[in-house]
C-alpha cells in the first residue's frame, strides 16, 4: 500500500509549508533519508548533542519489515527532504492494555523520528515543526480505517514522554519492565478522537 497526500508543516516563523505525507515509504526512500539525516546528526554529536534515539538504524528496520504487509513506514516530506518517519504495526501486534479496552486491537507505533534539524534534543530552533504530530495522526487514522476505533499504543523514550502525555494527551499506563523499562502510552477511542479534533486545524 502506498498513499501520498498533500499536508502542511510549520516553519520556524510558524508559517505553513506545503509537504507530502507518504504512507508506505519504501526501503530506498528510507535509505535516502538516512543518508540525508546522518551528516547533520554527526555534526550535532561532534558538538556534544545526541538524541536519545541516535542509535536507531532506520535502514535496518525498513529491511526487516520488507514484504510484511502488517508493518508500515509513514513519512512526511518537504521537497525531496524527509522531515520525519514513523513505523507502525497493525496486525499480530500487541493489544490494548487500558482496562476499558483490554485485549482489543490497536495500531502499535514502534518508532518515530523527526529529522535531526527538527529535533529539539539537537537544535534550539527546529526548522520545521509538526512532523511528529502529523505522523501520529496518520497512525490514528489507520486505526480508524481498520475498525480499531483509533486505539493506538506505544512505548516512549524518556525525553518524548512529555509530548505523548501533555501534547497528545495519551494515557500513561506506567513503566513496562518487559520493554526496556520504557513508559507505555495508549489512546482509547475517545482520546484518539479528541487528539484528532485538537490537532486537525493546526498540527
Amino acid at each position, binding site marked *: *500500500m502506498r498513499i501520498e497526500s498533500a499536508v502542511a508543516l510549520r516553519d520556524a516563523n510558524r508559517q505553513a509549508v506545503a509537504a507530502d505525507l507518504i504512507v508506505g515509504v519504501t526501503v530506498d526512500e528510507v535509505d535516502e533519508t538516512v543518508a540525508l539525516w546522518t551528516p547533520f546528526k554527526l555534526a550535532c554529536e561532534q558538538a556534544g548533542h545526541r538524541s536519545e534515539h541516535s542509535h536507531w538504524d532506520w535502514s535496518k528496520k525498513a529491511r526487516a519489515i520488507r514484504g510484511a504487509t502488517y508493518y508500515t513506514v509513514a513519512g512526511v516530506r518537504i521537497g525531496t527532504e524527509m522531515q520525519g518517519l514513523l513505523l507502525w504495526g497493525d496486525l*499480530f501486534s500487541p493489544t490494548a492494555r487500558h482496562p476499558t479496552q483490554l485485549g482489543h486491537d490497536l495500531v502499535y507505533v514502534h518508532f518515530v523520528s523527526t529529522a535531526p534539524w527538527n529535533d529539539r534534543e539537537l537544535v534550539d530552533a527546529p526548522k520545521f515543526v509538526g512532523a511528529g504530530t502529523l505522523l501520529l495522526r496518520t497512525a490514528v487514522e489507520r486505526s480508524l480505517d481498520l475498525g480499531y476505533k483509533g486505539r493506538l499504543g506505544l512505548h516512549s523514550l524518556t525525553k518524548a514522554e512529555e509530548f505523548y502525555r501533555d501534547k497528545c494527551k495519551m494515557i500513561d499506563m506506567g513503566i513496562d519492565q518487559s520493554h526496556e523499562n520504557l513508559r507505555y502510552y495508549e489512546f482509547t477511542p475517545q482520546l484518539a478522537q479528541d487528539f484528532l479534533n485538537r490537532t486537525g486545524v493546526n498540527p
Partner: protein
Amino acid sequence: MAEKRTMTLNLTDEEMGLLDELSSHYDMSKTAILRKALRMYQVIDARLRKGEKLFTEDELEKKKAELVVL
C-alpha cells in the same frame, strides 16, 4: 486511506453467529473483523505456500502444537 468497494456476503446462521461473537468480543464492526481475517489469511497462506508450518505456543506450559492446515 484506500478506497473501498462494497460486496454482498451470504453466511449461514452459524457463520453469522460467529461473526457477531467476534465483533462483540473485539469491539469491531463485522466488516472490520472480516478485513482483519482476510489480512491474517493472506499472511498465513503466503507462509504455508512457501512450505512453512503453522504452530501455536503456550508460553506458560512451554508447549508447542502444529496447526494442521488441509
